[in-house]
């Protein structure tokens, strides 16, 4: 297929939008930590833009998208040395009309934000050096294979026949399961449960949410890999699911706590965006509304449950990304509309495939992440000391202060 300038324009734009989501996420998370850990939180996200990009061009892209292995790609593309200005590599294969570089960069942005999502769970206590080591290893050992299984021609696509439009499995369940594993190894923040740990700047969280919503159009609609009707459909389902979920969350909240909150609204929006991610290019508008509704209500309830558990998932990665991702991946199995996308048609068969893929993604990510975390903990220690936590990670780990209002 010849390169099409319109498709390319939308994918260039989408790649930029998805890159922008990582700063957005940084602020979404950053606003929720205490001010003494603000920069450390931002840094955990931003550093993924550095480390994961390097991993991606070195081996990640190749492991995910080169070769025909069931379980893992090959290293033929390592270093991306043979990537030219055309679309020889992926044009025919995916029947897309964009340069290979654009496909690889679009995918790179997904590889970046996925580990960044995990940062919210380990906020305010994980050691920065350990975090860097973690995302470096995790991108290779967990992300790349998962991307290969689902999008690179691996067994989830070809054998399980589950579908995942823009990353319910690869991004959200993957990150959510990893968050759970990492939190279990890491333990709760010092003072957790005793001290009140309030968000230090909700406006910045809300700004981050605004950027996320904006960038998510690139994430989901860009996953059509072209500028066409399917992209339009994914754009619409994305926006509607976010709107419905945000509204549903606030309603649930108002009914349960008495007050609708701003943080609730944006949390609901993110939950809706997460849940629609795997389904965006498979469902019709009604499907999007149902998914949005489910995400808003169920993720909110998941959070209410959270207090029952003994783990400190600081910024609720599990309740939002794991629960939301599972919701979307499963509901898509029921709601997929073959008129929207011939690749999947809702029903028990597709539901079964989706359920299988969810179990596989969850189990793989959880187990491997747990092992990585344990090993890293033995090798280098993954937690900041109590004194560092007390002083705040900004000063103790980065020698910086977020806000200096003097003079």
């Amino acid at each position: 297929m010849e390169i099409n300038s319109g498709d390319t324009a939308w994918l260039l734009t989408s790649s930029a939008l998805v890159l922008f989501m990582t700063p957005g996420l940084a602020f979404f998370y950053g606003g929720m930590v205490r001010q003494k850990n603000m920069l450390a939180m931002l840094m955990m996200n931003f550093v993924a833009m550095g480390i994961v990009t390097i991993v991606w061009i070195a081996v990640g892209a190749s492991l995910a998208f080169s070769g025909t292995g069931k379980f893992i790609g090959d290293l033929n593309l390592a270093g991306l040395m043979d990537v030219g200005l055309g679309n020889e590599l992926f044009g025919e294969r995916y029947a897309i009309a964009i340069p290979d570089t654009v496909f690889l960069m679009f995918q790179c942005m997904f590889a970046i934000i996925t580990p960044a999502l995990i940062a919210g769970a380990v906020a305010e206590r994980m050691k920065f050096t350990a975090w860097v080591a973690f995302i470096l290893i995790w991108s290779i050992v967990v992300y790349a294979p998962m991307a290969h299984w689902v999008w690179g021609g691996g067994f989830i696509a070809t054998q399980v026949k589950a579908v995942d439009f823009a990353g319910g499995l690869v991004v959200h369940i993957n990150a959510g399961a990893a968050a759970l594993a990492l939190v279990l190894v890491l333990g709760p923040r010092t003072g957790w449960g005793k001290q009140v740990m309030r968000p230090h700047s909700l406006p910045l969280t809300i700004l981050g949410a605004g950027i996320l919503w904006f960038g998510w159009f690139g994430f989901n609609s860009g996953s059509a890999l072209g500028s066409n009707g399917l992209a339009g459909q994914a754009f619409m389902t994305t926006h509607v699911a976010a709107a419905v979920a945000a509204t549903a969350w606030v309603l649930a909240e108002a009914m349960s706590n008495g007050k609708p909150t701003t943080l609730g609204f944006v949390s609901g929006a993110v939950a809706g965006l997460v849940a629609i991610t795997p389904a965006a290019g498979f469902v019709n508008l009604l499907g999007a509304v149902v998914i949005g509704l489910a995400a808003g209500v169920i993720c909110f309830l998941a959070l209410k449950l959270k207090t029952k558990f003994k783990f400190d998932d600081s910024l609720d990665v599990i309740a939002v990304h794991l629960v939301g991702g599972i919701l979307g991946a499963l509901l898509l199995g029921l709601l997929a509309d073959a008129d929207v996308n011939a690749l999947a048609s809702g029903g028990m068969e597709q539901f079964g495939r989706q359920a299988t893929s969810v179990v596989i993604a969850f189990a793989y990510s959880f187990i491997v992440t747990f092992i990585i975390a344990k090993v890293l903990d033995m090798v280098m220690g993954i937690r900041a000391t109590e004194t560092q936590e007390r002083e705040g990670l900004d000063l103790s780990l980065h020698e910086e202060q977020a806000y200096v209002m003097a003079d």
Partner: protein
Amino acid sequence: MKLVIAYIAPFKLDEVRDALKAAGVTGLTAVSAQGFGRQAGHTETYRGSEYEVDMVPKVRIEVLVDDTLAPTVISTIETTARTGSTGDGKILVVPVEDAVRIRTGERGREAV
């Protein structure tokens, strides 16, 4: 000389300052504070978890005055800052042994 310290509601600051000016006070220093007292705190809710926060925003003001002006200052603050509901705040008087105006080096009453 006395140092009159008062904790007042933030929205009363402008009014109190103007009243004090009118009463002849020539200076004042204010600081944002958090107070706890009889006034009920408030609930904050973050993602479904409720926190009882019993610290309420207040402004702490400080006025250095000559002994003779102290009663006026107190009663001015009292009447201006009063709304009649809990949380109106308190006024204290602390003795001051010496005072200096940095610019001129004037001391004592001159420095006020």
